[in-house]
Every structure is written in structure tokens, then in C-alpha cells.
């Protein structure tokens, strides 16, 4: 196994304002200070204009310290110059739509099966849910072996989502994920900045371990 030069795995926070213990914009700010690299704005239940306003507020506090993708809302991504996170079944944006995204923004997609199919270009894919999670109570987790298979099958970086915490983040990295995405591990915390730091430490330890193992 060869480690790439860019060893630092990516940490994504997926927003859920109804779940967050702290007001969501404040929690996102704390998470960015704590070391989150990418914010995925989800909030699918909000009407488009309210989601757009929330996204604008989040973009303002994040500034350029983290990348932002907005869930399935390409129009909002274009309006605000953000990236976009597509659901498994969302069509890939056509060339005209893609050309209206701000250059350099992230385009990612959720996947739930090993059969990756024709995704169109992605900067990353989110595979999950890897571990059991309260966000998906009625479906069994895909587990680490399926994560490993998704990594092997994907031509894009695979990030793990679903029940990822500071306690198991390293396992997801051992399975080949180059990033992890969390909701509750940060938003459930009274101190989201500290919670983010502990996930970050666990990820860095995991990377060190992989480096030693492969040396």
C-alpha cells in the first residue's frame, strides 16, 4: 500500500440544524475552528430561499477556512459560489450547469452500494452508512468490509459516513477511506470545537498508524 503525499484525511461536517445542540451557524463556526475541512449544508426540509439564506450565513462565518458543498441544490451552489453534494440518484449536472459553478468548488456524491456506475466526475464520494447510526435507525450498516470494497471499486476518493466518531474514525481510514463525514459526533456535543479536535486527533493517529504499518 502506498500512501499519497497528501496524508491529511478530510473531515466533513454535515449540517442538521434541528439536531445541533448549539445554533447551527455557531456550531459550524466552532467546527471550522476545530479543524473541519468541508461543510456539507443539508437542511433539505427548508424552503429554498431559507436554505439559501442559511447557506449564505454559513458561508460568511466559514469564509475561506473550509470548503462548502450544498446538498442537491445546484441553483443555490451557483447563487452562492459553493460546491454541491449530490444524492445517489441525482443526475450529474450537464456541462452548462457545471460551467456556472465557481471554478474549483467541490462536487461530490453519496453512494450506498458498491456498484458505482457512471457517476460523472466527482471530487469525492461519500460511502455509508458504515457504522450503526441514529440517523439511519431502520437499516443495517454497510460495515468496514463494504467500505473497503467501495474504495477498491471507486476511481474517486471515498469518504466514510454514518456513525463515525473519534472512537472509530481510524478504522474507516484503515479500510482505505481518505476522509470521514460526521453529523452527531460534532453537532451533539456541547462543545463542537473540542469534539472536532478529538476527531481530528483520532484521524491523525490513524494516519500515523497506517504510515508505520506500511513503512
Amino acid at each position, binding site marked *: 500500500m502506498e500512501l499519497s503525499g497528501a496524508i491529511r484525511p478530510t473531515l466533513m461536517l454535515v449540517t442538521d440544524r434541528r439536531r445541533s445542540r448549539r445554533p447551527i451557524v455557531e456550531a459550524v463556526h466552532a467546527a471550522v475552528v476545530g479543524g473541519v475541512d468541508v461543510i456539507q449544508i443539508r437542511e433539505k426540509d427548508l424552503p*429554498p*430561499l431559507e436554505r*439559501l439564506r442559511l447557506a449564505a450565513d454559513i458561508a460568511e462565518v466559514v469564509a475561506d477556512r473550509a470548503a462548502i458543498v450544498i446538498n442537491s441544490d445546484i441553483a*443555490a451552489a*451557483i447563487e452562492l459560489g459553493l460546491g454541491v453534494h449530490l444524492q445517489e440518484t441525482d443526475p450529474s449536472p450537464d456541462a452548462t450547469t457545471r460551467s456556472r459553478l465557481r471554478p474549483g468548488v467541490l462536487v461530490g456524491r453519496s453512494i450506498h452500494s458498491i456498484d458505482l456506475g457512471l457517476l460523472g466526475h466527482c471530487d469525492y464520494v461519500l460511502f455509508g452508512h458504515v457504522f450503526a447510526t441514529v440517523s439511519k435507525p431502520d437499516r443495517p450498516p454497510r460495515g468496514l468490509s463494504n467500505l473497503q470494497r467501495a474504495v477498491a471499486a471507486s476511481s474517486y476518493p471515498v469518504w466514510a459516513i454514518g456513525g463515525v466518531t473519534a472512537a472509530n474514525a481510524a478504522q474507516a481510514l484503515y479500510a482505505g477511506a481518505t476522509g470521514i463525514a460526521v453529523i452527531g459526533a460534532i453537532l451533539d456535543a456541547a462543545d463542537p470545537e473540542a469534539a472536532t479536535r478529538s476527531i481530528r486527533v483520532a484521524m491523525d493517529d490513524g494516519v500515523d498508524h497506517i504510515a508505520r504499518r506500511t513503512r
Partner: protein
Amino acid sequence: MIPASTSLTSRLLLYLVADPAQSRHDLPTAVDLALYNGVTAVQLRAKTSTDRDYLSLALVLGERCRSRGVLFLVNDRVDIALASQADGIHLGVSDLPVSVARRLLGDRAVIGFSPETDEQAASAAADGASYLGVGPVFGTASKDDAGAPLGLDALRRRVEAAGIPVIGIGGIHAGNVGMVTATGAVGAAVLSAILGDMAPGDATRRLRDALRPTDG
């Protein structure tokens, strides 16, 4: 109210015709996005709405325009313009005559007129029109009775004859809006270029960028 320091001409630069029947998004949302991103005038045109709906839209859009210092006009309906405290009205050749609207709305109202002939363009100022909307400059699908495109030369002719500010309308988008203002028109009116776009705010920004004077 238009601040006295801001001329009508600069208020007409990027003029949105807000038609709820032709908006891809909820109209107040789309207009909000357009307002954030630089439209300078909004004309509400709700010909297929009931009077109640027309008025409530006028009240909502009028308030949002006023709070941003954007000109707010109502198409055709003097009563709705008055009831919503609009800055003025936009009239076509089969609507109330400009002179009658001027009497009803007073000296301070902005009254736009869409002439169909060079003669009408030349005489509108004398009747009390504040500006002219001339078109369709290019082919358009937004107005089914718009007729054949006039083209840029006819627009320039009407600009020269009018003696009052002229805006072009019809089939205008970010790719051709610069040609419209190059004729001497003070601005451009658009509908589908903003309301038909998946991202009305971004579409507005692109139009504004295309209207920015270039160096040299």
C-alpha cells in the same frame, strides 16, 4: 419614492419584468434574488392574476423594492399602482393613454410607454411619458403578441427620436445586453433571462457584469 439624487436613467439600467406566470421559482423569491444581485427596476406584470393576487404581489414586491431603493412599477393597472404606492406605471398602446395616467398619478409618477411605431415613440414625451420600452429588440418567447423583432437599428432610431430615456426589451440576455445599451438605450428590460433561470441571482449578476462599462 425615488431619492432625488438618483436619476431615472440610472434606475432603468437593468429592469426586471416580473411576471408570476413566467417565473420558474416562486416570484417573490426570484425577485429577492434579483434585487440582491443588482436589478435597478422591477415592473410587476400579472395579467392572468386576480385583482386580489395582483395587489398582494404588488404590496410585497413594492415593499422589497422600496427597501432597496429600486424603482417599482406596475404594468397597465393605475389602480394597483396607486394602491401599492408604486413609483409608477408601464403602459402599452391599448392601455389607458399616457396623458390620462399622468393626470391620475401626478407629476412625480414614473410613466413608461411601449410605442409600436416610430411616430408613437417620437410623440410619447409630449404626452407625459417618462421613458419608453422599445422592442422586441430580439426574438422572444416571453410575450406571445410581441411581433417580429425590431432589431438594433430600429431601437437606435427610436432612441434618437424619443428625447426621453429608452430601454430595450425582448430576447435580451447577458450575451447581447451590451449591444442594446450600445445603441444609446439607457438600459434593458428582461424577463426570462432572470425568471427562467435556475439561479435568478447569478443570472442577474451576469447581466450586471455584461452592462459594466469596459475600459477603452
